[in-house]
C-alpha cells in the first residue's frame, strides 16, 4: 500500500489529535445533555409524571448520543494505543466507577417505566441520577489529573507502571475540574430541557441550568487562573521529530513554570478556545434567563467546544504527561498508531462521520417537538 504516503505522518498525527478533540466534543455536546438531564432529574421532576417528561426528552436519542463515547474510546484505542492503555489501566478504580454508573443509565431508561411500583421507580431515579452525575464529575476529575501529570512510567519494553492511588486522583485541583465539567453538563442539560420539555420541568431546567452556567463561568475562570499562576506545565527539551517512531522514551521533558499557557503566546489563534468557552457559557446563561431555546442550546454546545478545546490546546503537544518520569509522557509525536493505521482510520472516518451526522440530523428532525405531560401520558411508546 503506497496510498497512505499521500499524507505524511506528522500531518496524520495532527489530524488524529484534532479528531480526538472532535469525538470528545461530539460526546459532550450530545451525550453531555443526557448526563446533565440525569443529574438534574430529582430536581426538575417532583412527581412521577414530571420525571417521565424529563426522561422522555432524551429517551429516543441518548442511545445514539452515547456512541460518541464508545467511538471516542475505540478511536483512542486505534489511533493512540498507549494513551488508551495508560489512562484506562492507571485510573483503574475510577474507570470502574464510571463504568458502573454508565451501565446504570441504559438500564434505568428502559426499565424504570416497566413497573408502576413507586419504590421501583424511585430506585431507578437514583440510578439515572448517579448515571448522569458520576460520569459528568469524573470525566472532569480525569482531565484535572491529566493537566497536573499522572504518576506513571514506561519500562524499557513499554510496559506501564502506575504508582498513584484512587484517592490520589481526588485532589483539590482535579475536583475543581470535575465540578467544572459537572456544571457544564448540567447547564447543557438545562438548555436541552428548556428546548424539549414543557411546563414546570422546562422552567426548572432553565432555573437550575442558569445557576450551573454561573458556576461553570466561575470555575472555568478559576481553573484557568490556577493553571496560569500555580499549576505550571511540561515542556519537551530535546529536539522533536514529528515523523519519528511512537517510542515515548526517546525524548527529554521538564516541568516548568507557565508552559501550559505558553502555547497561547506562541500561537495566539488558540485563544479562540477559551474565548468560545466564556462566550458560550455567557450566551447560555442569558438565553436561559430570557427563555430562548434553540440559540441557548447552540451557545451551550459552543461552551462545551470551548472548554474541552482549551484543555487540549493548552497541553499541546502533550496528551498525557507523566509526573513520575516526565520522559515517559505521551505526546502527539510519539504515541500514535503507525502511519498506515492512522491513514486507514482517517479514510473510514471521512466516509462514515458525514453519514453519521446526516442520519443523526434526520432522526432529530423526525423527533422534533416538545415533550409534555399530556404527550407522555397518552403515548404507549413513552418510557
Amino acid at each position: 500500500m503506497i496510498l497512505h504516503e499521500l499524507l505524511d505522518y506528522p500531518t496524520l498525527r495532527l489530524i488524529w489529535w484534532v479528531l480526538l478533540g472532535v469525538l470528545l466534543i461530539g460526546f459532550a455536546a450530545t451525550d453531555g445533555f443526557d448526563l446533565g438531564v440525569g443529574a438534574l432529574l430529582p430536581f426538575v421532576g417532583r412527581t412521577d409524571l414530571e420525571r417521565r417528561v424529563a426522561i422522555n426528552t432524551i429517551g429516543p436519542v441518548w442511545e445514539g448520543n452515547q456512541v460518541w463515547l464508545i467511538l471516542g474510546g475505540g478511536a483512542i484505542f486505534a489511533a493512540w494505543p498507549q494513551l488508551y492503555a495508560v489512562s484506562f489501566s492507571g485510573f483503574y478504580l475510577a474507570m470502574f466507577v464510571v463504568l458502573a454508573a454508565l451501565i446504570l443509565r441504559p438500564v434505568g431508561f428502559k426499565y424504570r417505566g416497566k413497573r408502576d411500583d413507586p419504590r421501583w421507580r424511585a430506585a431507578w431515579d437514583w440510578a439515572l441520577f448517579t448515571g448522569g452525575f458520576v460520569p459528568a464529575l469524573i470525566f472532569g476529575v480525569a482531565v484535572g489529573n491529566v493537566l497536573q501529570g499522572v504518576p506513571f512510567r514506561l519500562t524499557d519494553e513499554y510496559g506501564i507502571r502506575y504508582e498513584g492511588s484512587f484517592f490520589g486522583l481526588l485532589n483539590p485541583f482535579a475536583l475543581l475540574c470535575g465540578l467544572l465539567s459537572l456544571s457544564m453538563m448540567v447547564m447543557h442539560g438545562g438548555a436541552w430541557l428548556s428546548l424539549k420539555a414543557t411546563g414546570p420541568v422546562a422552567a426548572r431546567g432553565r432555573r437550575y441550568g442558569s445557576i450551573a452556567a454561573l458556576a461553570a463561568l466561575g470555575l472555568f475562570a478559576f481553573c484557568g487562573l490556577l493553571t496560569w499562576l500555580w499549576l505550571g506545565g511540561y515542556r519537551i527539551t530535546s529536539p522533536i521529530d514529528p515523523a519519528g517512531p511512537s517510542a515515548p522514551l526517546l525524548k527529554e521533558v521538564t516541568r516548568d513554570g507557565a508552559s501550559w499557557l505558553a502555547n497561547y503566546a506562541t500561537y495566539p489563534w488558540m485563544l479562540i478556545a477559551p474565548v468560545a468557552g466564556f462566550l458560550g457559557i455567557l450566551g447560555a446563561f442569558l438565553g436561559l434567563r430570557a427563555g430562548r431555546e434553540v440559540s441557548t442550546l447552540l451557545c451551550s454546545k459552543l461552551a462545551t467546544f470551548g472548554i474541552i478545546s482549551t484543555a487540549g490546546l493548552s497541553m499541546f503537544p502533550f496528551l498525557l504527561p507523566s509526573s513520575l518520569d516526565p520522559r515517559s509522557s505521551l505526546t502527539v509525536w510519539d504515541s500514535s498508531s503507525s502511519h498506515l493505521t492512522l491513514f486507514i482510520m482517517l479514510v473510514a472516518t471521512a466516509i462514515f462521520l458525514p453519514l453519521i451526522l446526516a442520519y443523526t440530523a434526520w432522526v432529530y428532525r423526525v423527533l422534533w417537538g416538545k415533550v409534555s405531560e399530556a404527550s407522555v401520558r397518552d403515548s404507549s411508546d413513552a418510557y
Partner: protein
Amino acid sequence: MELDVVSLSRLQFALTALYHFLFVPLTIGLSILLAIMETVYVMTGRTVWREMTRFWGTLFGINFVLGVATGLTMEFQFGMNWSYYSHYVGDIFGAPLAIEGLMAFFLEATFVGLFFFGWDKLSRLGHLAATWAVAIGSNFSALWILIANGWMQNPVGAAFNPATMRMEVTDFWAVVFNPVAQAKFVHTVSAGYVTAALFVLGVSAWYVLKGRHLALARRSMTVAASFGLAASLSVVVLGDESGYLATEHQQMKLAAVEAMWETEPAPAAFTAFGFPDQQARETHYAIHIPAVMGLIATRSLTTEVPGIKDLVVRAESRIRQGILAYDALQQIRAARGAGVPSEVTASFEENGRLLGYAYLLRRYVDDPRQATEEQIAKAAWDTVPHVPSLFWAFRIMVGIGMYMILLTAVFFFLSARRRLDRYRWLLWVAVWSIPLPWIAAEMGWIVAEFGRQPWIIEGVLPTAMAVSHVGITELLITIAGFTLFYSVLAVVEMGLMLKAIRKGPQPAPAPAPMLSAGQAPPRAIPAE
C-alpha cells in the same frame, strides 16, 4: 486457581465476556426477525404483523439495553486490565473496534430510538427503514468485532516493529479478509439467529399451550421455525470448521478439542466419547468412529491431522527460534539506530515472527536466552490448552447444534402442514429448549477463547504478558463489584422479561398516520 494478577484478570474477562454474550446473540437474531415481521406488515398491510413486531420489539428492548450496557465493559476492559496487550497490538486491534463504532453501532443505536418512539412519527416505510437499520447495524457490528477477534486467532497482515516494540499493520485487507474472521462471522451470526428463533418459537409455543394470542403465536412460530432451520443448518454446515486448519494454532485447538494426543494415519478417527486426561496425556474409555475426523478436518482421505504430542515438538523448535529472535531484537535495540551487523538483521528477519514463542519462557525466566532445556520443554507443553474442558465444551455445543436442526425441522414440517398445535408435548419441548442456544453459544466462546490459551494473540503474545500491573486488591474489588452488579441486573432482566411475556402483546394502538417522506416539519432545526 492461583490468586495472581494474570488469573484474576482472566477470570474477570471471562465473567464479563460470557455475561455480555448472553445478550448479544438474541440482539443479533431478533433484530433480523423484527425486520422480517415488519416487512411482511408493510407488504401485506395486515395489522397482526405490526402487533408481532411491537410485541417482540418490547422483549428485544429489554435484552438490548443490557447488551449495550455490558458492551461498555468490554471496551473499557482492554485498557483497564490488558494494557500491555493494548500497547502491543492496538495498532491493529483498535481499528476494527473503532470502525465498528463508525459503521455499525452508530447506525444501530441511532435508529433503535426511532424503532421504539417512531411508530407514530414515521410513515410505514420510514419505520421499516429504521428497523432494518437496527438489524443491519447489529449484524455489521458483529462483523467488525469478529474481525478483531479473528485476528487474535490468526494474526495476519502485521509485523513486529523493533523501534516501537509492538505489532504494526502491514496489510489491512488481510486483516479484514482473514479467513478465520469470515468463518467466525458466519458461525456467530447464524448462532444468533438460532437463539432468536428458539426464543420466539418457545415463547409462542407457550402461548399456544395456554390458548392465548393464537394468531400472533402461530405466525411467529412459522417465521421462527423456517428462519431457525436455515440458521441452524448454517451454524453447523458453514460453521467454524472451515477456519480450523487455516492456521497452525487452529491445529492445536482442533487436536485438543478431539483429545487427539498422537498423530494418526490418515484418515483419522473421531472420538465420540471418552475422558481426556491432561496429566497422563491420554484419553480413557475412548469410543472412536473411524475416518470421520480426517474427513471433517482435511476433507480428504490422505492428509494427516497432527496430534498434540507432535504439535508440542513443533512448538519446542519454535521456542528455540524465538530465542534467536529475542537475542537479535536485544542487539538491534542496544544499537539504538546505529549500525547493526547484517547477520543480526537477517536473524531477526528470519525468526522475528516467532518472537512470541520466546515470551512463553517469561513464566520461568526473565531473559529467555538464559532458559534451561527443562524450561524450554515445559514452555512447549504450555502451548497445549486444557484438553478435558475443550473436549466437553465442543461436544455439548455440537450436540445442541444437531438437536436444533432436528427441532426446527420438525416445527418447519408441522407449520407447512398447518398442524403446529397438534402435539402438546412437542410444544413443551420447544418451551424447555429456550435456554439451549445460550448454553451452546457460551460453550462456543469457551472453545474459541479458552482453546486459544496460553496465547492472547496466537503465536505472538502470551496471555500472561498482556496484563496491566494493577493490584490484587483492586482486581478483587472489581471482580466482586461486577459479580454483584451483574447478578442483580440478571435477576431484574429475567423478571421483566417474564413479566412482559406473561402480559403478552398489547392491543394495537391506532395505525401510524401516513406522512409523505418529504413532508417538512413545522420549524427548521439545527443539525446535531
